[in-house]
């Protein structure tokens, strides 16, 4: 630590040790950490430090601040007095509350909707075999659909990080094929071999729902999906459903939301289409059911999924996808 800072630390630790009453404690707290206190003063002088020493000085100053804070709190005055100090400090602002991550908040919102419809929440491993990520989803080896997803392999070609929440569906159908009917929803992380930058990441968050029952129809699928979109985007959202290909479903259905930026007129955000693709869905392919040991002549089902990251970013006005994962995401404190 910088010598000057070391001296300050020593000087104030002595003062802290001599504190006898909470009044003295409070007075010293203000002297050190008040708006015009010593610590803020030292931070304001950082600009005077030569460039080559600035980084070290900043780290030392942070260390001094933390150590003095801890010394203040651990000072040997009665517990009641410390408690009073903490209460008084916080009394001028609203109590501090913790926050769920925005992705978790969105997942919770959706879990609540689906639980009300009798859905269970499910999960499965993130390291998967090629069989569960592709083959059981009707994507055999060398199928061009594999190009839709660049995989991160642990041990090519057998083990990889799951590229889609449909891999959870493959596990679910295999493990619960005797527990029919099933209604499940699952949030999950998925991985793609993408360079990390402002708009791309190797990890995404998806939300998927799967139903297997008798006489399930596309009408059930689009009605339930529409409910999900209305939950997230409000009752006025306009969604259209169209033909779309995914190997694990037939027929495949693609939901598009009318562009919220241009109300369908066409703009750069929606590439002038007026619509934004919102994910994929469809009736579970008979081969997928067969591979899971479920008779497609008796049982049918639907599956749908959507990404959560873009929606969460739009909702929180986050411009850089890296912020969501270990980046600059922080929460305002003292709100209720």
């Amino acid at each position, binding site marked *: 630590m910088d010598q000057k800072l070391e001296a300050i630390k020593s000087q104030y630790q002595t003062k802290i040790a001599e504190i006898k009453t909470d009044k003295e404690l409070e007075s010293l707290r203000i002297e050190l950490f008040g708006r015009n206190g010593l610590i803020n003063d030292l931070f304001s002088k950082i600009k005077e430090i030569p460039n080559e020493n600035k980084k070290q000085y900043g780290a030392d100053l942070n260390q001094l601040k933390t150590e003095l804070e801890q010394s203040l709190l651990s000072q040997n005055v009665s517990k009641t007095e410390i408690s009073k100090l903490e209460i008084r400090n916080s009394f001028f602002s609203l109590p501090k509350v913790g926050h769920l991550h925005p992705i978790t908040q969105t997942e919770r919102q959706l879990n609540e909707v689906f639980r009300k419809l009798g859905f269970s929440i499910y999960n499965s491993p993130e390291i998967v075999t090629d069989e569960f990520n592709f083959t059981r989803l009707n994507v055999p080896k060398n199928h061009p*659909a594999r190009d839709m997803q660049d995989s991160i392999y642990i041990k090519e070609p057998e083990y990889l990080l799951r590229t889609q929440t449909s891999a959870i569906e493959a596990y679910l159908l295999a493990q619960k094929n005797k527990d029919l009917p099933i209604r499940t929803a699952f949030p999950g992380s998925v991985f793609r071999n993408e360079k990390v930058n402002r708009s791309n990441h190797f990890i995404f968050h998806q939300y998927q729902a799967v139903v297997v029952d008798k006489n399930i129809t596309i009408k059930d699928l689009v009605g339930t999906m529409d409910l999900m979109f209305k939950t997230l985007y409000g009752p006025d959202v306009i969604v259209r459903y169209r033909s779309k290909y995914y190997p694990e479903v037939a027929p495949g259905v693609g939901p598009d939301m009318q562009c919220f930026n241009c109300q369908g007129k066409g703009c750069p955000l929606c590439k002038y289409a007026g619509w934004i693709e919102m994910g994929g869905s469809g009736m579970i392919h008979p081969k997928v059911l067969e591979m899971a040991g479920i008779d497609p002549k008796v049982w049918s089902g639907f599956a749908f999924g959507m990404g959560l990251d873009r929606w969460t970013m739009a909702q929180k006005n986050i411009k850089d996808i890296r912020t969501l994962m270990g980046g600059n995401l922080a929460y305002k404190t003292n709100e209720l």
Partner: protein
Amino acid sequence: MKIIYSQLKKFLPDLHSDYKKLRDDLTMIGHFTNFFEEIDNEIVFDLDIKVNRGDCLGYYGLARDLSVFYNTKLISPFYQREMSEGQRDLDIKVTTDNVKRVMATKISDLKNNNSPQWLQTFLKCHNTNSINTIVDLTNYIMFLYGIPNHAFDTTKSGENLIWEMNSKFKEFTSLDGSKLNINNDILMINSPDKALSLSFWGGESCAINLDTTETIIEVAVYDRGTVRQNSRQLKSVTEASVRLEKDLDPELVPQAFNHLVNLILENCGGQISSQIFDYYPNKLKIPQIEFDPNKASLVSGIEIPNDFSLDCLTRLGSTIYNLKSKISVTPPSIRKDISIEADLIEEVVRFWGYQKIPTDQPLSFKKTTDITPKEIYLIESLKDQLTKFAYDEILSWPLVTTPTNEKTVITTENSINSEAIYLRQSLIPSLKQQLDQYERFKLPPTQFFEIAKIFYKEGDNFIEKNALGIYNYDSKQLIDDLQKLNLPNNIIDNNFAEIIIDDLPKPDKYIPENKNNNATELTSQIITLDANIILDSKEDPIELIEKYSQVIGPEILWKLIITDIYQDKKINKYRYTFQASYFNTDDKTAKKIHLQAFELE
């Protein structure tokens, strides 16, 4: 893929949709159309073609789809003109099973030249450079039918062409001069002493130029897996590879071939100087699919007339058989994506229109077995508790730069993010990184947590477990919070803790009881009463509400809220004002329970 409106109209002369409607209709039937633009007075659409619809990587396949959708006539552009063959056999050999069909012939006495304006404009709209007439016509036919083809200058290549898996050559130079290292797994067209062409990319050694006077033209369909593998192995993607790695129709090869040869003869003169070579060892087997027309209604959930289903499949080019009250359908050979009944149903529903299916009828509640794993309830509960204790949730990268334990770390094989190739074995390094980040932003002292997977190897097995990582600037508070949550005291570096959630007991108490049992029959008016309680210290309002809710009991308590918190500074006490609402009881009983619960008697 780009589509020029005027070219599409050559297949569909009765097409009258305006551009915007056509764009939307194409999208609705599965060909997502991003936008249209004007290039050299032509309207050009930009489409995303589905990976299972190789047929739509050409105008012909796409026009077939639109003719069914608009119920309009499709004009076949096929040249019916007989080609007068030469006498000589071509010396062509095919030595690999990866060739499904190839047609070829030699054309001599050509006068190659620069392409006519219409052809140059066509290619410009397809983002393809014009080279010369012969080359441009091969590309034109590829865009028209979706079937790639190739022209060899025989003065450079010779006439002795061999379709083979490469065994002789180490290097191949493509038309654009790129040098590629090739091995034995590459499907090629070679002469006995020269590497001439990949299956999906022509070679420099036999390139057509303006001086070319004789050529061998070939149109071929290959095993798509081999082309895909070759393209990936050589890291080369071309317009041809994109098409050849799809399931293309070998039955379409003669039409494309005939059209190409005739266009070359028309534009460059010359004559066919060999016999037509047609290698087609295994004729395509088209499936016969049993089809119940009622299924379109049963699967869609709306009424779709059987007549429509059968008419739609017929217009698509299918042959329909009625055999002993059962209907079977043979789809057209170009539709390689149709192989089972579900595919036929999809065709019917897509042409009937998804927009006709109501969207206001979601599934209603149905009680099914709750198969939610217990750890999910535990994780949800922990997250709720931690946020109540003022911890913020963060998420961090599961791939990290440094292993925690080199012996058990799982390493990714092909991550393009070279700085992060290990799967994390602990959440603590990520939490420390987050803390650094917060300190850089001078965030006031903070406390946060992450619940996520950690990974490690155990022998040959890959293990993953749910873990909780937690940080508090106040180490004493951290210990206290862990204690309150009944979590083990796994403190690391004073202010951090890591707990493996999967190793914790998962008591059933975390599972919410009967989630749909909120309905209540009201038998009397709701009675609302206030209560002030004085406390020596500040308490968590949520804990107080939980405490008094339990004291009063759910049989009688309708709602309990705290409406006011006041600190009396003179006596240093806190006054909490509660508002309790009681149901299905009378005034007197409610008051008695109220006074007892809040100890106001």
